[in-house]
């Protein structure tokens, strides 16, 4: 059932300072709207709890991608359409291009923002596993100050994040890859359709090798826990053991102890565990 629009208010912020001022005054009674691809769906279904919206669509300073020091910096209001086409992303962060191409469909990518995807905090979010494996950092700003946190510290529980009522996510940074280190990368979103689907399981894996010796491994998985997960225990196991069929199976066993998939409208715990193991095995067989 559609919402009664007169219960809702919308103010358009002209710049970042104004957005923060408005949010300060309203605190938890208002929320930000960026591309609208999550919130307008809720509004349409009569399920948007917060009645006061602060629109961010005029804040151009947050809609860009640039190299800053040794990082790629992506403004929180950058759309997936912009991200998938950007030369620096295509060259240095191919998994982010792949994930962006699988967000909804083109018409959604042209509106949906990276910041919105992060803050909406769906455990099945498409960008999350890629950002985790790329060691992303988030910038959170309020009217007085700003702070940077590693993205793997951001999600605490289902839709519970390290962001305060007076803060806004402004920027996302990805460390530029080391030219002397080669990487094998893999991203897979398992869903019902080639487009316009929400993942049942998503996985992003990166192996870093120098002179054919394993330096670092990053394994992240989505839709199998209340929030997207870095598989730290599996990573440690890979770093301290040799590749073998037994060890690949053991890696899957370790993973299955830390994930907690559920039965829901999209899939079952059993299917998700099986597919997670298949994805991890595939990645390790082909890249380790």
């Amino acid at each position, binding site marked *: 059932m559609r919402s009664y*629009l007169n219960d809702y208010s919308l103010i358009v912020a002209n710049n970042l300072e104004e957005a923060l001022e408005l949010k300060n005054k309203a605190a938890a009674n208002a929320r930000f709207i960026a591309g609208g691809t999550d919130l307008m769906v809720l509004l349409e279904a009569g399920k948007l709890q917060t009645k006061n919206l602060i629109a961010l669509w005029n804040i151009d300073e947050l809609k860009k991608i640039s190299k800053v020091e040794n990082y790629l910096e992506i403004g929180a209001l950058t759309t997936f359409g912009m991200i998938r086409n950007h030369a620096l992303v295509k060259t240095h962060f191919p998994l982010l291009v792949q994930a962006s191409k699988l967000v909804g*469909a*083109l018409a959604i990518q042209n509106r949906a923002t990276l910041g919105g995807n992060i803050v909406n905090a769906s455990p099945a979010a498409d960008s999350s596993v890629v950002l985790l494996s790329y060691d992303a950092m988030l910038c959170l700003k309020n009217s007085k100050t700003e702070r940077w946190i590693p993205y793997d510290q951001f999600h605490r529980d289902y839709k519970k994040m390290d962001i305060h009522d007076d803060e806004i996510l402004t920027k996302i940074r990805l460390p530029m890859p080391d030219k002397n280190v080669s990487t094998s990368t893999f991203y897979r979103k398992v869903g019902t359709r080639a487009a316009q689907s929400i993942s049942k399981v998503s996985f992003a894996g990166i192996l870093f090798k120098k002179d054919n010796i394993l330096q670092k491994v990053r394994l992240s998985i989505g839709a199998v826990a209340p929030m997207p997960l870095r598989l730290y225990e599996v990573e440690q196991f890979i770093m301290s053991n040799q590749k073998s069929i037994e060890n690949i199976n053991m890696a899957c066993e370790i993973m299955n102890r830390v994930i907690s998939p559920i039965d829901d409208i999209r899939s079952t715990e059993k299917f998700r565990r099986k597919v997670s193991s298949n994805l991890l095995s595939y990645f390790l067989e082909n890249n380790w």
Partner: protein
Amino acid sequence: MPESEIKTHINGKEFRFHCHPLSRLTDAIRDEANLTGTKIGCGEGECGACAVIMDGTLVNSCLIPAREANGKKIVTIEGLENGLGLSPLQNCFLEKGGAQCGICTPGMILAAKTLLENHQSPNREDIIEGISGNLCRCTGYVKIIDSIEAASKLEKNQ
């Protein structure tokens, strides 16, 4: 909440109306501008029937608050024909049988237009990706892809 005045350009003409700022752009296009070529299929950005081109990019108008369209240039399906009749892309859909009930067709054609503007010579896979946000319940998509393929070959000869 008082209504907002929205001033926008649709198919090259300036258009003004008043509505709640969170009304859907689709409703403004259909009910205020009386351009009913843009359809509402799912109302949640999944089917592409409401697709329009806003400031040069393909978007699902059912997810756009009317207030955001203030100052923007919008192209709907009605904007494709010129004084001489249907556009070459639209004619290809006619010739190749790319429409049955026609509900998906406006969104489908705008997605095709976007694809052809960004791709010199799309192959069938490119075409399929370009329309992957548009659902059709009638045709099985084959003739839609044929129509777009024909249009892409036409453009080369122009």
